[in-house]
Every structure is written in C-alpha cells, then in structure tokens.
C-alpha cells in the first residue's frame, strides 16, 4: 500500500469456505513514546451515496437483443437506444416501463429476424433504462425507489439494478446487483470500485411485442418513482341496507377517496349497464327507477384508481311493498324491550320500562333466512329485585321486540 494509490485484489473463492478480507500490519512491538516516529497507514473509507429514481438525471437507453429462450436465448447484439424506443419514459416524476413496441412500429412483420410467422415477436428484448454516473465509483451506492404498480404479464419482467463496468477490462460488467420490481418498494446496495463506471436503473425483459395482436395495455407496465404512491381508493361511505318502496326511485352513492377513480356497479355480482331503469352504473351514484321486487339485491361497487388498485363495497337494497309486507331477513333488525309488572298471572301488569336492546340478547337471530326467537333470559337477575322476586322467580313480564324500522312506510296503506 503506497500513498495516494488505489488497491484492488480479487480472489475466486470456494463455496462453503470461510472468507476474510482486510489488512495486516507487521513489525516489532513499539514503544508509545516513539510510535509517532514509526509512521502510519490511512485507508480511505468510502462514502455512502443514495441514488433515487430521479427524473432530473440523464437517463439513457441501451437494448440488448437475444434470441427467444425457446430458440436458445443466444445474444444477438446490443446498442444504445433512445429511451422512448425502449419503451421507458418519465412523466410527473414517475418512470413508466412497458414491453418494447418500437420494433413493431418500425419493422414490418415480414422481417423474420424480428417476427415469427405467427406475427409474434422473435427476439427477447433486454431494455435498460439507466443513469451512468462515474462519480459514484469508489462509494457504497444504494439505489432505492417505490414500485407504484407492476402489472407486467408473463414472460415480461422488470428489475432494478446497479452495475459496475471496468474500462480497463473492455467495459466488462464486473459487478451487478439486481432486484425484481415485485414489491411495493426496492432498495439495493453495492460497494463500487474507484475508476469503474457505475450505472443504475431498470431492466425490462421480454419479447418484442406485436401491439396489434397484443395491445400494450394487455401486457402490463411498471410504474416506479422516488416517492411512495398516493393511497389507493378508500370507501368512506356506502349506506346499507337501503329501503325503498316498490315503484319508487332510489340512488345509491358511494363516498370514496383516491385519484383517477373509475366505478363499476354490480347486482348480485353481475356487472350493471345503463338502461332499463338503471343509470350511473359506472359512476359514484347508481340510480334505479321504478324499482320492483326483483330489484331487491346486493349492489356492490368496484372502484379502481389509475394504478389499478381497487376497493369494493356492498349495499343491500330492500324493496318494500307497503300493502303486503314480509319479514325480510335482508333488512336491518332492531331490538327493544318493554317490561311490565308481573303478578304471577298469565297477563302482564302495568308498564314498567322500555329500552333498546341488542338483538343478540333478546335472544333473536336470523340465519339462512330463518328467524329464531327464544324467551328472554338475559334480563333475569336473582339479586336484582326489579327483575326477580329474590326467591328465584321472575318479577317482570318481558316483551322482546324484534323488528324492522322503515319510516318510508308512513302514510302508506
């Protein structure tokens, strides 16, 4: 080790062995009083540098072209490409990576180098979208970001990388660290060597796409950025159940937060379309006109944001026919207790008290559309003289009400 000089040693190690690296300082034991005259060695400690998905950097494109894996996967060629041709672009700080379509744009399907007879891509495209920054060399480099979405379909994949090229070895890649963009964020770190070229970015791999037979929208995409994506759609309000009298109109509105939202209402799981008394099937408010008994159903809404994140809510619509009410198990059932004085006879005495009461304590329940009603036991308390005669007998006559409340029926026959 000499002053002002870089060092670099390399060893091919053996799997399963124990590996050590460091320094050995050799010489006689020294006296404290004279050690300063014996000299010292100072080794630089590399700095830690954190790089992000920064659109202000100069992002480059490089395409490596391979044969399809089914054809052996051999390397064909590589060259610098415009980033838009990769396809990789930045917009509002977000990098979008999609399967390559520029070959389809530029090269006729009759070119058998690029296209199979079926019209499918005939090459595997390894599209590199990256920043090259030699000033990072010699540092510990961390590259991190957030994956807003990755909807790529097989066989397309995308990964983040840091690569290190050695100019003295023909620009060979001497160090590469990668991670697939399959999580919500990524972070990779590697130590780099002074004098090398450091690149970091993204590599999207898969066949050149025929966007007529397989539109890009069906192949998916990756969105990555330096910041976390905004929160996905969140339902803040959706009434259920909703009561409506037969032959009335009703609207069901979902409250939701998020951006770039689209809606799809369903009736019992089947997508609704506008028409035949239905409107707003793809909006926040579903409107049903002149509802009949057949309209009684579960109305669900699927909300999708611009990153394809979804939220789903359900609302049950109960249709009442005022002239012919039935005990509808899909309605909300309420509980109420009226207590009367008990004199040991078979009829209640005077009214004592009344109060709302949980249906589970009534004891009343509905399961499979069948209501089960039992005599009340939850109010009896042998130490409470209001409810008990303190000799083990009851002291009140209890009326347990299990009911639907629907004020819309007011004024109806």
């Amino acid at each position, binding site marked *: *080790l000499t*002053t*002002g*000089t870089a*060092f*670099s*040693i*390399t*060893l*091919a*190690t*053996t*799997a*399963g*062995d*124990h*590996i*050590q*690296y*460091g*320094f*050995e*300082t*050799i*010489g*006689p*034991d*020294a*006296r*404290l009083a004279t*050690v300063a005259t*014996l*000299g*010292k*060695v*100072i*080794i*630089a*400690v*590399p700095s830690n540098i954190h790089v992000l998905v920064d659109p202000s950097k100069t992002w480059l494109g*490089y395409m*490596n072209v391979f044969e399809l894996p089914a054809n052996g996967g051999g*390397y064909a060629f*590589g060259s610098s490409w415009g980033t838009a041709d990769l396809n990789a672009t930045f917009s509002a700080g977000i990098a979008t990576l999609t399967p390559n379509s520029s070959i389809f744009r530029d090269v006729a399907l009759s070119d058998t180098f690029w296209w199979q007879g079926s019209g499918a891509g005939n090459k595997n495209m390894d599209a*590199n979208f990256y920043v090259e920054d030699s000033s990072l060399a010699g540092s510990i480099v961390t590259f991190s970001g957030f994956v807003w979405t990755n909807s790529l379909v097989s066989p397309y994949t995308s990964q983040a990388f840091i690569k290190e090229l*050695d100019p003295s070895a*023909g*620009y*060979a*890649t*001497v*160090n*590469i660290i990668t991670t697939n963009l399959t999580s919500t964020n990524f972070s990779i770190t*590697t*130590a*780099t060597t*002074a004098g090398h070229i450091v*690149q970091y970015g993204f*590599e999207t*791999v898969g066949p050149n796409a025929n966007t007529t037979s397989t539109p890009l929208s069906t192949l998916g995409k990756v969105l990555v950025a330096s910041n976390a994506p905004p929160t996905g759609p969140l339902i803040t309000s959706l009434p259920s159940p909703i009561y409506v009298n037969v032959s009335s109109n009703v609207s069901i509105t979902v409250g939701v937060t998020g951006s770039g939202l689209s809606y799809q209402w369903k009736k019992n799981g089947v997508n609704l379309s506008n028409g035949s008394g239905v409107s707003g099937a793809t909006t926040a408010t579903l409107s049903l006109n002149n509802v009949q008994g057949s309209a009684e159903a579960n109305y669900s809404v699927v909300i999708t944001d611009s990153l394809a994140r979804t939220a789903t809510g359900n609302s049950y619509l109960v249709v009442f026919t005022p002239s012919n009410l039935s005990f509808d198990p899909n309605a909300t059932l309420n509980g109420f207790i009226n207590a009367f004085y008990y004199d040991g006879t078979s009829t209640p005495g005077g009214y004592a008290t009344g109060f709302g009461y949980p249906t589970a304590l009534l004891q009343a329940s509905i399961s499979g559309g069948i209501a089960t009603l039992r005599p009340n036991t939850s109010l009896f308390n042998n130490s409470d003289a209001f409810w008990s005669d303190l000799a083990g007998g009851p002291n009140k006559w209890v009326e347990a009400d299990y009911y639907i409340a629907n004020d819309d029926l007011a004024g109806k026959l």
Partner: protein
Amino acid sequence: MKTLIKFCRYGLAMLLLLGAISSASAVNVIVDSSKTWIGFMNVSELPANGGAYQFGSYWGTTDLNASFSSAGLTLTPNTSIDRDVPNDAYWWVGGAGGAPNKNMDASMYVQDDTLAGQTVTFSGNCVSNTLVSPYTVTVFIKDFAPDFPHLQPLQQR
C-alpha cells in the same frame, strides 16, 4: 486456503456496456466501517531471533492498533504491549526500557462467509502510508476451507 493479491481479468465484454447476464458470481467489497471488523494478532520472534511463531489470538481492534475515524481507517505499529507490559522481558529485550522483542502481525479484517463461492474483489484507496522499515502493511483476501481448524489468519500471508 487460497490467497490472491493481484488484479483479476474478467471475461469478454460481449455484452458491451450493459451485460445483462454476466458476472452474477462477482462481488465487490470495500473498506466499510459499518461492517464488523475483527482483530487478530499473530506473535513471532523477531526475524533476527529466527522468527519462530509464538502464538495467535483474537484482540480488540484498537489493541492492534487499528481504528476508524473521520480520516479513514488508521493502522499503526502496535503499542498496546508497551501500554500493558512495558517491563516484561518476554516482550522487551532486557525488560524495562528495552528494545522490542517480538514481531507483531496485526490482522484487521472482516469475515463474511456469504462471499464464499463468488469472485471477490476487495478494493480501496490508500490515503497515506508513512510506515518506516521494518513495518509493512498488506491487504488480503483469505479463503479458509470449512474444516480448517483455526479461522485466524495464521501464517496465511
């Protein structure tokens, strides 16, 4: 054990600037103060006395003497013997006030077995080296077989 202290050449630069499927087994390591650095001292007789190996043991890194600071990693001749046993004739010729009587081989290193099986490159920069003769510093990578009885960097230069 294999020890190599020279540059390694890599394969063809077939994939030019962005070889996507290359060197998956190559890994760089550097002088990273966040790693766990270990101290080990091998003690021998002075070369003038035959240089026979005496013993080796784990030492605290500051006792080597090796330490990290804002300036970097500093390595100096060992003084902890003088600090702890300044009058011991084993360490000093004639005891108190005597000249050094042992040769100190101070190893400051990281052990990372996850590197095994890869081509490891250890690199860095020597800011300064003002050591006077006979003191020397070397940089190393060492590969110990799994059944090697002692993992200390004993006689592995």
